[in-house]
């Protein structure tokens, strides 16, 4: 009951923050010089007609009111530039499906590798395996995405020719997945390692040993569960960002995902797409954070959701 009340309250708060995000984004976007039709090869007269047709000649607050009204009805409008005339909802839906396919794979890879390598490093502190994992994760965490993407492409696609360069070929998802998973994997390794190191010194593990529990149970039931609490906190924002797609990975490997629309909609002043992607991305982050808090509560009984 308490949990349900908490969820309702959080959703209410989420609606307020979404409203704020929509408002700020809308007015900031209109402060940008230019309009969606600035690159049209048309006379000034025809452009004026286009601008008037979409109501962009009216005062900003009227445009804003109209956008909000439509948004509440579930209508995000149609694209002005990128895919002219197609509903923004369809564009997001399609490109998100692609981003999600890639994102889920990257997410699974990051969690599995990050948590297991982090645990190994933590449990084998100062042994050679810990050293190797620490060095590799430091490198991974400090390399920008485009360097990783280009390096992968040169080695795996150009020199060894084992993987295709673009996404639409068979196996084309592997390199973008690695690029996308690299940072979160390395971050999770460091997070898990630090967390394990802290938990391994806890008194309750001595209690477990004194009860005659095997080292396996001590480590994999008690230590691991306790050390995953900080990891769960990181999973919310991670999931949202990885699912919406990394702009770099999607651009370099030509993946038709949401990440690409993120930036291209802004540079082409495709107002409805900018707004649509913003609303979608913010909702996703808010939702993932809420899910994470609930998961947090399930793992750690001491947390009260209020």
């Amino acid at each position, binding site marked *: 009951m308490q949990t349900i009340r908490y969820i309702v309250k959080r959703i209410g708060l989420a609606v307020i923050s979404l409203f704020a995000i929509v408002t700020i984004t809308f007015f900031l976007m209109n402060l940008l010089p230019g309009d969606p039709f600035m690159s049209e090869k048309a006379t000034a007269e025809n452009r004026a007609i286009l601008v008037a047709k979409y109501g962009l000649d009216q005062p900003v607050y009227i445009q804003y009111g109209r956008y909000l009204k439509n948004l509440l009805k579930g209508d995000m409008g149609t694209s002005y530039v990128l895919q002219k005339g197609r509903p923004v909802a369809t564009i997001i839906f399609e490109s998100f499906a692609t981003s999600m396919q890639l994102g889920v794979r990257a997410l699974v890879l990051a969690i599995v590798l990050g948590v297991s390598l982090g645990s190994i490093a933590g449990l084998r502190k100062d042994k050679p395996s810990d050293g190797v994992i620490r060095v590799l994760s430091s490198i991974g965490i400090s390399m920008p995405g485009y360097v990783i993407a280009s390096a992968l492409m040169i080695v795996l696609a150009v020199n060894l020719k084992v993987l295709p360069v673009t996404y639409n070929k068979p196996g084309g998802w592997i390199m973008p997945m690695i690029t996308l998973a690299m940072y979160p994997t390395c971050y999770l390794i460091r997070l898990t390692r630090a967390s394990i190191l802290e938990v391994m010194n*806890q*008194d*309750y593990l*001595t*209690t*477990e*040993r*004194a*009860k*005659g*529990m*095997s080292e396996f*149970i001590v480590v994999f039931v*008690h230590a691991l*569960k*306790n050390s995953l609490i900080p990891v769960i906190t990181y999973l919310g924002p991670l999931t949202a960002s990885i699912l919406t797609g990394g702009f770099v990975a999607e651009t370099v490997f030509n993946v038709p995902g949401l990440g690409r629309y993120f930036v291209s909609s802004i540079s082409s002043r495709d107002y409805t797409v900018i707004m649509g992607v913003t609303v979608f991305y913010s909702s996703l982050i808010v939702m993932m954070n809420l899910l994470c808090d609930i998961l947090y509560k399930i*793992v*750690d*009984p*001491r947390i009260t959701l209020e």
Partner: protein
Amino acid sequence: MNGHDTTDNVLLEIRDLSVSFFHGGAEVQAVRGINYTLKKGEVLGIVGESGSGKSVSSHSILRLIPESGKIKSGQILFDGKDILRMSKKEIQDLRGNRIAMIFQDPMTSLDPLFTVEYQLNESLKKHTDLDAASRKKRMLELLSMVGINQPERRLKQYPYEFSGGMRQRVMIAMALSCDPQLLIADEPTTALDVTIQAQIIDLLKELKDRLGMAIIFITHDLGVVSDICDKIIVMYAGKIVEEGYSRQIFFEKAHPYTEGLLASVPDVESDVNEKLRPIRGNPPDMSCVKEGCAFAPRCEYAMRICTREDAPLFELDATHAAACWKLLKETAQ
């Protein structure tokens, strides 16, 4: 304690136990060759300041010392079998089953993410053949036994829902779940309020009378052990400096260190104007052990020999011994 005991009554015998810790090449000698015997159903208090080796020596009985520690020599005979030579499986079968342990800080000694039921059930599942229903019954029985009301409801709760004293009761219930022959209580009341301390001591006393297990009670507070222990060992700098029956330690104390400890315990009957007498100085640094008696630099009776040669245990009578040179004359007669 001195070979007068009939061997079939002996539960635990520690022979020449030495434990050291190694930190980057430096050796810290935590325990330096201690010997003692514990009979079945007997309560032994081990008293000393922090760093005296009382905890380390007791944790060694279950081989629970941290990784940086090493048991250098000695034997720990439990029911005639050397614990130090047991396999991993043998020692795990012993822990929580025939020898159980409770710890200093009940606030951190239970896993916060599991219910009390889960944590109690773990030991029962491991060490007994009981089925789920009997285990449940046993758990309820255990919680009632340690004075926890509404055991049905409490079993389902998590440690954070218990107060410190209640958590220590849970720890005791957990330790006693498989009817151990020996309970090692490592400062079980140090982290608790004074009133709760008394409750826990009373509980341990009552359970001891009812279940008849032997107890090793580790503490730095002589006041705490006075009415629960049959025998007391006083440790200083990794060695036993005095051992005997409780009344001998309290009324016939022979070692200056024991004297100092007793003088620093407040007494209700003493005059309000009488000041407590702390032992001056600090315990020695065990990473560079000097010649002679470790207590000599703090001892008001120190003689020349004390700084040159360590005193052996002098037997004052069959059950009482102390390691101090000033006893040489007395015992020689």
